[in-house]
């Protein structure tokens, strides 16, 4: 438990002192540790259910507690997988000769620490600090290298992130004023009925988090930031970072939404998500640059996540569970698939020496591996079987049908078709034959293997969805023995 929080922070400080190459060796060691610790925590939760962990030995209202349950541990594991892949890829991909690249590792580790902080956080203010940790580390990663376009994207990102955080904090201030505690569990206990002021608080928090998650129409900052960053960074940002703020929003909604929400609110959030699916896919289809396509596809895929709100509000318990499982699968499969896609796109850009989609012509001759990874990741985004994306879509379809909200069925199906449109546009471009000349750069095997593994994970997720989801429904015991939690 301590290791999970300590390792990334310690490695952040350590790698700051080293240059890129040494930092790389040290970081790879750190990744191994981190993966092992995550697995151990996952195993512990599998064995005896969730527990809460009081930091510093101070229990919840006074101190900060961590909540370790099935959902949190699933995300911790997901983070370990995706971040490790991105870190490995970055080690080969980034140009070690550029002096600023040494700052990649500390920022990377801080990002990881912040993510783990969010997954495990049960304290509203602590979540705010973790979010800021993530945002600043992400902005720093985008700006790394300091070119004008990157700076511009980083600044837009920073402004959006800050505004979002403040809106969230304002909501926290109201909640603290009302309840005198920051622990989400205690607030949930004390909240008896709906009060208008608390609705304002919830709206503020959701709005702030939606801005940070880039929900339509607040998505303007995402594509430049994700499109312009180096590929491993884009993969981290799209795969994990946007999920952090969504995760908090989802937790808030699932804990407090039943009393503070209203059908009107739930449906409008869902409608925004639906609009994001359609609009993001359309824009993705129109982009001339490969990474912009992938970035706009993130906007669309994030839209699906917000269907959680209508599908869990005022519905029967099993239906709500279906929707939650579907959304969790969507988060996982999108994280894996999008990371694979960005990494593969990075390889493709390396080898065609251009960022444009139409420069891909003929590349299927010589680079089937990265292209294949890209394609497999695309299968998951399109929601075709047996990918995790399909499993998620299936569960959401079932939830929409069972809750009688059939209009989301149309969104889910249309989203798949639109995703197919922009993914096949890339395939099409790459299958075009233009002579036999092989003037492509061939990236090393290690660069090509990583996105492949991620893509295969995303693809195979659908087949093992049941065991993955079974962790979510493990019981949560509030009384935890602190000493046992030492991992």
């Amino acid at each position, binding site marked *: 438990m301590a290791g999970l929080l300590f390792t990334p922070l310690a490695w952040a400080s350590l790698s700051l002192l080293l240059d890129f190459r040494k930092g790389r060796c040290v970081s790879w060691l750190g990744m191994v540790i981190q993966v092992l610790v995550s697995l151990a925590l996952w195993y512990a939760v599998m064995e005896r259910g969730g527990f809460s962990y009081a930091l510093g030995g101070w229990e919840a209202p006074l101190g900060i507690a961590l909540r370790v349950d099935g959902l949190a541990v699933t995300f911790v594991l997901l983070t370990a997988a995706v971040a490790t892949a991105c870190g490995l890829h970055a080690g080969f991909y980034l140009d070690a000769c550029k002096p600023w690249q040494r700052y990649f590792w500390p920022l990377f580790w801080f990002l990881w620490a912040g993510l783990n902080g969010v997954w495990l956080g049960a304290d509203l203010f602590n979540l705010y600090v973790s979010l800021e940790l993530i945002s600043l580390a992400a902005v720093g990663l985008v700006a790394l290298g300091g070119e004008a376009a990157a700076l511009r994207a980083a600044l837009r990102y920073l402004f959006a992130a800050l505004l979002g955080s403040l809106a969230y904090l304002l909501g926290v201030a109201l909640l603290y004023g009302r309840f005198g505690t920051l622990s989400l569990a205690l607030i949930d206990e004390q909240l008896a009925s709906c009060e208008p002021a608390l609705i304002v608080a919830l709206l503020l928090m959701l709005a702030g988090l939606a801005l940070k998650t880039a929900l339509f129409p607040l998505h303007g900052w995402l594509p430049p930031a994700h499109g312009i960053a180096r590929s491993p960074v884009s993969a981290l940002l799209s795969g994990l970072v946007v999920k952090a703020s969504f995760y908090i929003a989802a937790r808030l909604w699932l804990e407090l939404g039943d009393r503070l929400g209203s059908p009107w609110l739930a449906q409008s959030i869902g409608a925004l998500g639906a609009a994001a699916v359609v609009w993001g896919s359309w824009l993705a289809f129109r982009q001339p640059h490969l990474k912009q396509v992938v970035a706009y596809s993130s906007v669309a895929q994030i839209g699906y996540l917000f269907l959680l709100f209508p599908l869990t509000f005022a519905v029967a318990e099993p239906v709500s569970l*279906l929707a939650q*499982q579907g959304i969790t699968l969507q988060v996982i499969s999108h994280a894996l698939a999008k990371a694979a896609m960005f990494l593969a796109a990075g390889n493709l850009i390396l080898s065609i020496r251009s960022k444009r989609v139409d420069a891909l012509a*003929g590349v*299927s*001759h010589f680079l*089937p591996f990265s292209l*294949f990874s890209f394609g497999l990741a695309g*299968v998951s985004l*399109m929601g*075709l*079987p*047996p990918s995790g994306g*399909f*499993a998620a879509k*299936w*569960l959401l*379809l*079932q939830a929409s*049908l*069972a809750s009688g909200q059939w209009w989301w*069925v149309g969104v889910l*199906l249309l989203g*798949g*078709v639109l995703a*197919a449109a922009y993914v*096949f546009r890339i*395939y*099409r471009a790459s*299958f*075009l*034959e233009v002579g*036999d000349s092989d003037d492509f750069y061939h990236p090393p095997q290690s660069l090509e293997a990583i996105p492949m593994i991620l893509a295969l994970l995303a693809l195979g997720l*659908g*087949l*093992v*969805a*049941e065991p993955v*989801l079974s962790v979510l429904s493990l019981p949560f015991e509030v009384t935890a023995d602190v000493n046992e939690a030492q991992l």
Partner: protein
Amino acid sequence: MTATALLPLLALLTSLLAAVVIFVLPESSHRVRILVNLMAALLKLVIVALMTWGVFHGVDFSVSFTMLPGVSFMLRADALAMLFAGLSAVLWLFTTIYAIGYLEDSPNRSRFFGFFSLCVASTMGIALAGNMFTFFLFYEMLTLSTYPLVVHRGTEKALRAGRNYISYTLGGGVVLLLGIAWLHGLAGDLAFRETGHFQGADPALHGQLTLIFILLIAGLGVKAGMFPVHGWLPQAMVAPAPVSALLHAVAVVKAGAFGIVRVVYDVYGIDFAFMLGLLQPLAWLAAFTILYGSVRAMAQIDLKRRLAFSTISQVSYIILGVALFGPIGTVGGLVHLLHQGIMKITLFFCAGNYAETLGVHRVDELDGAGARMPATSTAFTLAALGMIGVPPLAGFVTKWMLGTGALATGVEWAVVVLLLSSLLNAAYFLPIVYRLWFCPVAAPWPGERRWGRLETSAWLFWPPLITTLMLVLVGLLAATAFSPLSWAQLIVVRMYLP
């Protein structure tokens, strides 16, 4: 894990693993690739034969595990599954041999054979799927794995056809998914069962079930090339000949037709579907597609396009047979699934041979080809005659069974459709046969190549001859045990008399 669970998995894995191995192999290792291809094809044939033997003796091959809450992945071999699995296993072997010859010295072979194997794995999965969910899984996998084959040549035209193909099939997939998800929400996880699941279902649900049926058939109809949604098929002819052979004779169109059979018999149950009044419109649609495809085929100059429209027409025989609501008609439809596969693959092999050896793509360029390529032309002629329904070839058996079935259930108009269709078949096939044998060579062949002793490369020479032999044999020996006809009768017996 017992052998009964292992065999269906193995049948899938042979081609799946072959695909993986081929993808990993470097482009230049041709010999290893050929070896892997042929070994996998032979192995699969053996496994399928074993399973067929087992199913005949009542062994239950099945394997399943839970994939999602409430949904399981399920493979199960019943008699109907083995019909389709057998067809694809046999034809995969010949198409592989043919494709090795056809693509000799062309680029991107690693990619081609990889996706080719994936395609067969999907077909096998479709055949062995034990419920609608698993069926859909492989159905979409088939869509994806055939796309790279259609656009294989990488020309503008091929890419356009590919886009068209993918729009149709993915669109169909979406409709199908909606139907399956809705059905699942209504009735839970439905394993395929010989009598269907809705015998005596709540009348309040009938409206919804009708709607779902329409969705399912519409989604499946796209791949089966049924009338309003057949547009992708003629365009997909830009693909290399082995792909056309596989797509049209085995994988894609048959997957659609097979799915329709599954839905009608094993999900809804034939009696229930009839009671809902769903079979009558289906029969009309099938009949219309039969005539429409034949009429359009007559107008085509390009040989492969003519064959494509012929496929559109022929596949609907299967659907017509199913929709006739009688055991004999069903036998005709099912046996046509197999017979048409053999005949059509022969025709495409021959068309590919003409294109590869003589550079001929158009019907009017074929004058006198019979003298230059007698064996291929004989094969073509026999297959064409079979298509028309000349006894004792394969096509005659199916048409006879279909006609008998129609009369037995009192659907006389279907017999008229069959006769009309045969006339039309003759009208677009016989001129080709005439040109092959009786017209003198008008002009030098556009792109002639020579291979030693045989009229064409050995890889290309033998497959059509073997399939021709098969189509003669299945017609002649239709009454013996283990012929496709008796197997189809076995299926129908099990379906109607569970």
